[in-house]
């Protein structure tokens, strides 16, 4: 990898630009600002929790920030950047030349830290009273501060090729490079129930390039964009040792655990990243007839994972139309349809009882029947009504459909239908004050259910006592009870949003708001699923001329969730 070289190139490029600009080689009117400072941090380990993106360290760092704005008769450009510390910095450059060429280039680096040690809560768990066999844990590496630096660079260009047709070439590129260490875990099932962690190097690279053409003539605009994205990890694979599976309670060998012996005594690679290539083509069009505006797109994308040789294809399109029926009535319509197809392949895994004790040969081959296979459709129609110059109302109705093929089994189908509607009224008295109220309702039939979903059926008649063990019930073996098809997702949802702004003077503005969300699953027979959120807020902004603005606000957020979670009440 040559990322450090790439970073250096960016630094050199920006320094060269600053020298060019400030030396007067580029003749223009300039506005500069330069800011120098320093900061000192003194975090302790607790800061990990809230310092996910704040670097932990007890050092003083110099800081520097700058902006340069320049303009000539035909050109505008700007440079800005900040160095906070060697893990937090950014720089951006923008240029628009003669209305024919524009570009943006930016570079940024920041650090993301793991918020906690992945084994930490095992310590708490095992401090409950007894030493643990289930689970025990071990850190195989001593690195404690896991995290990575994200380097991100973006470039965007636009070049006018022919003004007559407004024909433009549009291009963009972005790379994201993550470098550092991460904590990987693995479990050996199930004698030791042994979770171990290792440090793994992070070297993840994402590259994306877009290339497109746009043109317009009269009322019609068309565009085409091709995008190509790759993701690959360049870190060495890590592996974990799988120990021998035994009865987790007695510690003895048991035939029933043969299924867990596939990797016994082996080092097996774990946590391998996918190797992804994705490309898409998108065609856009727009017809603007003043009172009528129609636009739409058609897209095709293919995503391929080279590790497993899988791919999926999405074909879809959208259409949007808006028309001004009268000076007081505007109508919007939106439709989207897409279909995703993913290949079904057989994964060949050795028979799990081959050469082992117990039972018949059981083929462990796995046919992948992807839940990606689906048809998606959505349509909305919305009316915007101006009742008078101060009052405006909007009403919206919509429908969303998701039909999943082969989920959860090959050939099975499930569909989720959602109907939604919303309305709002807004009153505005010039710039003096503004009041608005909005309500949204969503009704969903058959929301998504997880594979082997949770249960609602009472178990008293199903659970059977284990032979010879009067107090033992093997709940987890009662598949009819354990795996059912309910979900904690809502079937009805209400959202209310109230807000008000009052401009007390040219310099002082006050605002207040209230957002409430309540949802519920009404398809359950006995269990209750309800979620609610309540968020009132107040704020004030004070501006003294154009030089400075003070914004301050307070939001109170109260969230409540009621629903079943499945814990095991009885077991062996």
């Amino acid at each position, binding site marked *: 990898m040559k990322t450090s070289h790439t970073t250096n190139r960016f630094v050199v490029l920006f320094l060269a630009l600053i020298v060019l600009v400030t030396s007067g080689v580029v003749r223009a009117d300039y506005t500069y600002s330069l800011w120098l400072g320093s900061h000192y941090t003194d975090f302790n380990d607790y800061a990990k929790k809230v310092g996910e993106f704040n670097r932990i360290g007890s050092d003083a760092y110099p800081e520097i920030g700058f902006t340069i704005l320049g303009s000539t008769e035909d050109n505008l450009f700007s440079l800005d950047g900040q160095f906070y510390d060697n893990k937090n910095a950014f720089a951006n450059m923008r240029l628009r030349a003669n209305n024919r060429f524009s570009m943006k280039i930016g570079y940024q680096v920041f650090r993301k830290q793991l918020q906690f040690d992945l084994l930490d809560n095992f310590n708490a768990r095992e401090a409950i009273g007894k030493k643990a066999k289930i689970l025990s844990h071990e850190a195989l590496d001593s690195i404690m501060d896991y995290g990575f630096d994200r380097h991100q660079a973006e470039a965007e260009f636009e070049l006018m090729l022919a003004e007559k047709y407004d024909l433009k070439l549009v291009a963009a590129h972005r790379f994201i490079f993550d470098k550092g260490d991460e904590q990987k875990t693995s479990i050996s099932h199930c004698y030791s129930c042994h979770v171990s962690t290792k440090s793994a190097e992070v070297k993840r690279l994402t590259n994306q390039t*877009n290339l497109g053409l746009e043109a317009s003539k009269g009322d019609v605009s068309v565009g085409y964009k091709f995008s190509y994205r790759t993701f690959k990890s360049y870190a060495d694979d890590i592996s974990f040792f799988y120990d021998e599976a035994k009865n987790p309670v007695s510690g003895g060998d048991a035939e029933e655990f043969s299924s867990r012996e596939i990797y016994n005594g082996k080092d097996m690679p774990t946590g391998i990243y996918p190797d992804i290539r994705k490309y*898409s083509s998108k065609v856009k069009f727009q017809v603007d007839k003043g009172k009528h505006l129609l636009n739409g797109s058609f897209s095709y994308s293919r995503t391929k994972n080279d590790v497993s040789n899988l791919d999926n294809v999405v074909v879809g399109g959208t259409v949007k139309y808006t028309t001004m029926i009268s000076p007081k009535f505007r109508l919007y319509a939106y439709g989207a349809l897409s279909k995703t197809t993913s290949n079904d392949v057989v994964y060949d895994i050795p028979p799990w009882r081959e050469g082992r004790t117990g039972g018949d040969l059981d083929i462990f081959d796995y046919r992948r029947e992807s839940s990606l296979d689906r048809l998606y459709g959505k349509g909305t129609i919305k009316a915007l009504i101006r009742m008078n110059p101060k009052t405006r109302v909007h009403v919206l109705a919509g429908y969303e459909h998701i039909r999943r093929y082969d989920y959860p089994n090959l050939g099975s189908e499930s569909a989720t239908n959602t109907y939604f509607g919303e309305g709002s009224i807004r009153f505005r008295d010039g710039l003096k004050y503004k009041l608005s109220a909005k309500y949204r309702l969503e009704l969903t039939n058959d929301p998504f259910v997880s594979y082997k979903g949770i249960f609602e059926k009472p178990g008293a008649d199903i659970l059977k006592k284990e032979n010879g063990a009067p107090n033992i019930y093997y709940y987890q073996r009662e598949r009819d009870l354990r795996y059912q098809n309910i979900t904690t997702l809502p079937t009805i949802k209400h959202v209310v949003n109230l807000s008000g702004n009052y401009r007390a003077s040219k310099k002082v503005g006050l605002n207040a708001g209230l957002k409430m969300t309540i949802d519920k699953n009404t398809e359950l027979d006995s269990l209750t699923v309800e979620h609610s959120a309540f968020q009132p807020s107040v704020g004030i902004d004070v501006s003294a001329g154009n030089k400075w603005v003070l914004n301050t606000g307070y939001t109170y957020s109260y969230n409540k969730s009621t629903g079943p979670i499945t814990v095991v009440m009885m077991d062996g």
Partner: protein
Amino acid sequence: MLSLSKPGLYSVLLALILAALWLIPADVSAGPPPNAEYIGSEACGSCHDDVMEGFSETTHGLLLSKVKKYEDKLCESCHGPGSAHAEQQDPDLIINPAKTSGMDDKPLCLDCHSDSKFADWQFSAHGAENVNCSTCHTVHSKAGQMLKTPTPDLCYGCHTDVRAEFYMPSHHPVTEGKLDCESCHNIHGTENKFAMGDDSRELCFTCHPDKEGPFMFEHEPVNEDCRMCHSPHGTVADNLLVQSEPTLCLNCHAMHFHTQLPGQDIPDEEPVPTDPNRFITSTPDGFKIGMLTKCTQCHSEIHGSDLPSQSISGSGRALTR
């Protein structure tokens, strides 16, 4: 007897509401009269000297003065012919972009800002909500200063609930300045330039492509909607999870019975099987132990994996490796 399903009933109600609202007479009478004439920016400056001062150095001042069809009009390029307004000093006789209704053919600013970035403005959440350009932008300012307040504070002014979420322990680094609201949101209706489809998940994959797959062993909610498990602005739980583990996972999955068993010393010698009176059974402590376990510590590849897990249960799709 006519019977309507729930959606049908709502559709009829919606149609009735629309019809009723359409019948309400509208009062639309702002803007210059048809006989108004252009009077030049000097006349504007005689009253609006605070705006005119330094206007020529602003972005719009610079650009308008270089476009032939606007060079004589300047202020009136956007505000329309000002003769009637100047004579009667009536604010209703001039176009004030800050007060435009959104009911016009298209917002005034889009006459010039007509490139593809704004093509979808009318369909954007802001455009359809009748948010004016001047709600966020200071039109009479210099380049680099054309937002009323720097983001994200500008956005927080209206989206106060989002402000609260970004101050929760786990959040995308917006308050730290590493991301901007516009990194994810189509503020002007423009599609995210790095999104490669219309799927809501695609937005997340632009920065987190390793989660996309396709994987041999899938976690189905990943294929549905990232927001089933994650709340992107901020959460109390780690990793932007809507609830802490294991509670989140137990919304869909039954807990392993092993997970609740209290610990025991691992004996030097293998214990004698004691079935049916085994020496480990569930206890109240066991429940606490279960709730102190994070599912992803074992099911570490929770977004999907190409490697089969050791256990046969679930045909190797336990996502443990």
